[in-house]
């Protein structure tokens, strides 16, 4: 064989062998092929705890978690271009906000809160005890770039408020692009101090945190977000829930020095209970179904008259969330729930047979003798309570109640009885009438007492508070709003999603 052929054959053989070696990965187990791996973009600063939690998760579920580390900004750029991957774990909320405004982020599960502190080498050789010491002419500090980092931005604002910025600015020897760069500078002794998240300082045994009360108001948040192009949201959210679980991921973060949020309890497939007023069912049912599918959870929904629901709550039932038909049926159980959010409202109507043969135009008309009326039960439902309140304020209560033939716990029963022809009119929500438009006639009541407002709140003792808060976000989405409006509700939640 001549030397040329030898080279050609030799190098080609080498290429084949090398390629084979590269693709033969001894760690590839067959079980991994069956379940698709999760691709997680993870801020390099969170590497320690996240790797630990991911390994636990792999062992538990057999799903492989591929962690991709880098600076949060770099990762954000990468995932925006690549448009693939499942989760994004950012070093602080500024990157999650940026991801959301770029339209690549869906749900966010919070993990930890962070507070800015002054970082000095262990032992504090320069005796820096306050922001005032940072203004000493013999002190040089490294500062995270306010344009590129959340900590730089929020602490600059805080220092401007406290009036320290002008005096500290000349002491800044260098602006660094990430918190870890600042930490490395302090660690190496290139500078005397830096301003860092308390959680970052906790990761460096060589550093020590000096608490500065002026910076306490500027908290940062660590969270994991689901990417909009993730095509296995249930799997992604499952791992995100694992990360944010108070008995799984969060203790690992706490051990790494983060002050963690109150997370949910870990369940492979959580089962939650949602109490909802009957009137809301049509508006939320589809949203609940999609939520179950996306999160991989089971939502046991209990639709009933709100009087019955609140009675059950007072009797000790603790739903994970409660969507009331009216605020008056939230206030009486408010101590069991977190802050409530008003999502929609609906006005009461007089619903009559087609063509309104009895010519019923106002509440006063309902007092005419000889009518057969149906109303909701005062004790069992918000609608009944509202009806009584309204009639009393108009001075018509006893006269109208004299015509009432039937009282039911929910409005849909009334609508059905009206349709059978056994009643002349019923008093229900406008939302109850949307399904029978064209079949029955509705007269809207203008009185302020005729308005029912629907609030949603998460159970204070729920083990799945974060999950139910995410459900609230789904309820507030434009798609959900459309379902509410189709169901005859008026949308009330006008403040934009934070």
């Amino acid at each position: 064989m001549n030397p040329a052929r030898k080279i050609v054959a030799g190098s080609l053989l080498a290429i084949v062998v090398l390629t084979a070696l590269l693709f033969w990965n001894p760690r590839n187990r067959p079980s991994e092929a069956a379940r698709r791996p999760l691709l997680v973009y993870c801020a390099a600063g969170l590497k320690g705890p996240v790797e630990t939690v991911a390994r636990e998760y792999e062992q538990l579920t057999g799903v492989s978690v591929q962690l991709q580390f880098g600076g949060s900004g770099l990762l954000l750029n990468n995932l925006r271009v690549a448009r693939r991957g499942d989760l994004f774990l950012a070093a602080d909320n500024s990157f999650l906000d940026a991801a959301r405004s770029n339209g690549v982020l869906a749900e966010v599960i919070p993990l930890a809160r962070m507070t800015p502190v002054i970082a000095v080498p262990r032992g504090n050789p320069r005796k820096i005890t306050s922001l005032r010491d940072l203004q000493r002419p013999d002190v040089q500090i490294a500062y995270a770039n306010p344009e590129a980092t959340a900590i730089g931005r929020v602490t600059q604002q805080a220092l401007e408020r406290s009036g320290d910025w002008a005096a500290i600015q000349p002491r800044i020897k260098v602006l660094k692009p990430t918190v870890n760069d600042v930490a490395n500078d302090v660690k190496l002794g290139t500078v005397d101090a830096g301003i860092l998240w308390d959680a970052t300082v906790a990761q460096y045994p060589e550093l020590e945190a000096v608490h500065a009360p002026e910076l306490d108001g500027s908290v940062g948040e660590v969270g994991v977000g689901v990417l909009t192009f993730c095509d296995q949201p249930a799997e992604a959210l499952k791992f995100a829930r694992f990360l944010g679980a108070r008995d799984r991921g969060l203790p690992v973060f706490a051990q790494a020095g983060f002050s963690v949020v109150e997370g949910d309890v870990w369940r492979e497939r959580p089962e939650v209970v949602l109490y909802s007023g009957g009137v809301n069912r049509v508006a939320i049912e589809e949203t609940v179904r999609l939520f179950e599918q996306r999160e991989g959870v089971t939502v046991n929904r209990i639709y009933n008259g709100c009087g019955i629901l609140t009675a059950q709550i007072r009797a000790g039932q603790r739903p994970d969330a409660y969507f009331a038909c009216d605020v008056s049926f939230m206030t009486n159980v408010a101590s069991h729930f977190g802050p409530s959010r008003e999502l929609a409202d609906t006005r009461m109507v007089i619903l009559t047979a087609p063509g309104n043969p009895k010519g019923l135009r106002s509440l006063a008309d309902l007092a005419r003798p000889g009518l057969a009326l149906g109303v909701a039960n005062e004790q069992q439902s918000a609608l009944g309570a509202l009806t009584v309140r309204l009639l009393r304020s108009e001075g018509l209560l006893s006269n109208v109640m004299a015509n009432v033939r039937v009282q039911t716990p929910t409005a849909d029963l009334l609508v059905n009885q009206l349709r059978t022809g056994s009643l002349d009119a019923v008093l229900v929500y406008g939302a109850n009438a949307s399904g029978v438009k064209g079949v029955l006639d509705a007269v809207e009541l203008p009185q302020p007492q005729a308005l029912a407002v629907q609030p949603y709140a998460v159970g204070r003792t729920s083990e799945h508070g974060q999950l139910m808060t995410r459900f609230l976000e789904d309820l507030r989405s434009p798609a959900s709003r459309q379902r509410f409006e189709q169901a005859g509700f008026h949308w009330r939640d006008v403040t934009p999603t934070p």
Partner: protein
Amino acid sequence: MSSPSAPHDERGNAARRSRRSDRTFLICFSVLAGSYLLLLVSTLVADLFYTSPGHLWRALQSAEIRYAIRLSLLSCTLTALLSLWVAVPIAYLMARLKFPGKGLVDALLDIPIVLPPLVIGLSLLILFQTPPGRAVERWVPVTYAVPSVILAQFMVACAFAVRTLRATFDQISPRHEQVALTLGCSRSQAFWMVILPEARRGVLTAGTLAWARALGEFGPILVFSGATRFKTEVLSTTVFLELSVGNLEAAVAVSLLMVAAAVAVLLLIRTQGLESALGRPL
């Protein structure tokens, strides 16, 4: 004893002077050369003081780092071979042919050298999101998988190999080739039997340069391949990951492993290399 004649004396003085100026010249050059070597060696020594045998041992013990070493060595070698297979024809054609737009092609070939590495990674990432890119991905997953590491390394390493080989082929006189052709060789025979043996030193340099570039390659890999442990993590990304969490000791330990691997492989190629393939000493 007769006194030496004046002209002879002058010649001797001149020789001594020239020997002395030779010495000064060599000393000056040695000092300049030595200052760079000193800088190199002192950084390595400083590195050594920043880490400990314990850190080195722990780095070697870690399965992630062992995987990264294996992936780095395999991918760099594959990249170097592929680079040579592409760079040799490119450099040969560019050295021997004249065609319109040659200046433009020449400039194009330099792009990977001029572009910031991150941009190369980003461009590859974008390329594989286009319809043809996606079509390729359906058959062979590239983005965030092992082939992306090779591709990212190849993009840059090949450009350096082309530069080196171009200079080599430019220096080989076309006369030898023409003689071979007149003696009845075909163009391909002339290339394999005359040009390539003459260019072996350049090919070797180009190969080692490509290998070394690939080993140090980092920016494009971070963007295009990610740094997934046990998948696309190479030694240079390990260093970055350790640095980003402030683990300077481990980063330095891995860097030293890289230095050791690089020195070992470069020495091996220089001493063995093509010599055995060509069956004659360099």
